[in-house]
């Protein structure tokens, strides 16, 4: 593996390897002293063109636990504000001798663009509406921990599919490992050509959840309503919100995921988010698994075993 750009382009065997490795690394997170020397002397640079606390911090934790240097570049402070183009910014990071660039960008394909420009590994931390592969992996890891094998499971992804990179990474990752994926949301927030994906598409929550083993609830960006794609949050919440009532459409042991940050009371009710009334919510576990997954990714791309480093 040279880069992690998308789960669509990542072979099934690599996905399994990353999940297995993350499972092993998760044990380190439970130790009192969370530090291993594995990546000592390596430097990871995070380059974030969009705000993110959770993902950036998760990568930083992962790097530091493995003794790598973690340098964060927030774009507002960088020369991008002076009008530098993406290519030049990337080449500068490479010339600074970074061993790996973790990038978030508002443009779909930005990570693939970066990989084409650079000789060092690139990790896509979310590019536009395209993919967010480490989120996909951590969702899969969480499901695996609860349900065992992914094969044969039915996973319903609910919400704003159109603008969601999380949904796309989930679709490719889950289906490669044998799960059945459903996309559920209002028509205005479903991609017009979603039927071409290896999924089933629903604009009715009840039908979409029926028999689901896992419900992955997406964050509703409030600006969608301002653009007129939704009449009101109230109607969205009533039709597509995951509440103790609507979760009953799924299997009784259904696991609830949410990539965060949540809009409580909009796409997910507080009771569901907090796992009350016997509802299985894995929202916090997802965050912990996120660190383990990113450790696995950094280890795979920057570790001494990776020949692309030593070449």
């Amino acid at each position, binding site marked *: 593996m040279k880069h992690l750009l998308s789960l669509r382009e990542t072979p099934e065997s690599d996905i399994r390897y990353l999940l297995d490795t993350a499972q092993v690394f998760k044990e380190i997170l439970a130790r009192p002293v969370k530090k291993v020397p594995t990546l000592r002397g390596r430097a990871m640079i995070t380059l974030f063109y969009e705000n993110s606390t959770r993902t950036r911090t998760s990568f930083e934790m992962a790097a530091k636990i493995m003794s790598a240097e973690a340098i964060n570049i927030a774009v507002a402070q960088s020369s991008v504000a002076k009008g530098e183009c993406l290519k030049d910014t990337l080449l500068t990071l490479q010339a600074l001798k970074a061993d790996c660039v973790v990038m978030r960008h508002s*443009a*779909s394909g930005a990570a693939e663009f970066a990989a084409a420009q650079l000789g060092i590994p690139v990790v896509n931390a979310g590019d536009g509406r395209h993919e967010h592969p480490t989120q996909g992996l951590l969702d899969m890891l969480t499901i695996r921990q609860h349900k065992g094998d992914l094969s044969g499971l039915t996973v319903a992804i609910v919400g704003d599919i159109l603008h969601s990179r999380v949904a796309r990474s989930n679709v490719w990752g889950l289906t490669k490992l044998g799960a059945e994926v459903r996309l559920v949301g209002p028509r205005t927030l479903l991609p017009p050509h979603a039927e071409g*994906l290896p999924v089933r598409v629903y604009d009715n929550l009840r039908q979409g959840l029926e028999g689901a083993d896992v419900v992955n609830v997406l964050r509703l960006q409030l600006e969608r309503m301002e653009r007129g794609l939704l009449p009101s949050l109230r109607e969205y919440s009533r039709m597509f919100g995951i509440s103790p009532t609507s979760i009953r459409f799924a299997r009784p042991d259904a696991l609830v995921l949410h990539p965060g940050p949540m809009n409580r009371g909009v796409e997910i009710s507080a009771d569901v988010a907090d796992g009350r009334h016997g509802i299985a919510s894995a929202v916090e576990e997802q965050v912990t698994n996120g660190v383990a997954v990113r450790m696995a990714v950094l280890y795979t791309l920057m570790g001494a075993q990776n020949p692309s480093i030593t070449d």
Partner: protein
Amino acid sequence: MKVALVGGRVIDPAQGIDREADLLIEGERVAGCIGPGSAPSDYETIDVRGKVVVPGLIDIHVHLRDPGFEYKEDIESGTRAAAAGGFTRVCCMPNTNPAIDTGAVVRQIVETAKERGSARVHPIGAATRAMQGGQPTEMAELKAAGAIAISDDAFPLQDAETVRTIMQYCRMVDLPLMTHNEDKQLTEKGCMNDGYTATVLGLPGMPAAAEDIAVARNILLAKLTGCRLHLLHISTAGTVELLRRAKADGIEVTGEACPHHWALTDAACEGYRTDAKMNPPLRTEADCEAVKAGLKDGTIDCIVTDHAPHAEYEKEVEFEAAPFGILGLETSFPLTYTHLVLPGVLTLSQAIAKMTIEPACVLDLPDGAGTLEPGALADVAVLDLGAVWTVDRNAVRSKSHNTPFHGHELRGRAAFTLLGGRRIAL
């Protein structure tokens, strides 16, 4: 000076000629076409055995970027690319800086082309001042200076009343209006066709309906005003059908198509290849087939390129940030021959007609453009149908390199052109 192109196969669709013949040229004009081997002895001969001799190709839709964007292309490099592709006449779009919105800019382009051009250049005037979509340009002056049509290409007129006004004015000055058909409300941030590939890549799409809606509106307004309408770069099955019906209804409307809209689908954008980004975007297989059917049954009058050079650094960016447009002049005939003639969609003569006499008629081009009739300007293309070659983005005559056909193996190629009887050196 008397020159004879001897031993070739002459195809001139305007005269219904397709036979082995020698083409005689006196000075800058065609003297005639006679049986093979019978050129008089006082003619200097050019041996074109095994080649096809046709009227110089005509592209009525190119962007020469001059004045204002000479780092992308200029009249000299653009017409050299044209000559390399077999073209002797091109019509350049007005989205320059300043826009082609005054007689002075028209005259400057015409004069520069005469001094330094490897092909004839006819400017197309802007519909509105600075292409801002508001005040109409002084079209009578544009015409007097040499503009042969009016267009809103690159900045499609959105307001129907403005289009009506422009059409009424175009009709009065007797210039056709060439429209870029796009309802911008439907394409807002779109950067490729709205389809499966856009969904997978997470890129905002431009639905085919955005083109069809604008086409339908423009056809209806052409009917209302009596303006001659020419539909630029047809890319959708819907547009082909609307044009077919409009012609059947007797509305004065013509249409053109670019090679990329039948040779590629939106799948070419995979990998976020900005060299496959243009507007209108690459569409689906069904749209490609509809465009081919439209060319075959005569619905679509002519083949153009929408040659749109952009500098390397402008295209080497995030897909959404990249400008629309690709090169076309040097691959137009080879793509037509490879994708339309060899598979039998068009006969060679039909294909040549759509690159010579048909576009000449659409814009009423002067001086016997598009034919080798005696007395016409001796603008000639000599084509090598046997050529098998691979497109190399680094080996183009254009200043820019943005072609999605890099690495494609094509058949057929222009060998050389004559412009007014004079062989163009490349």
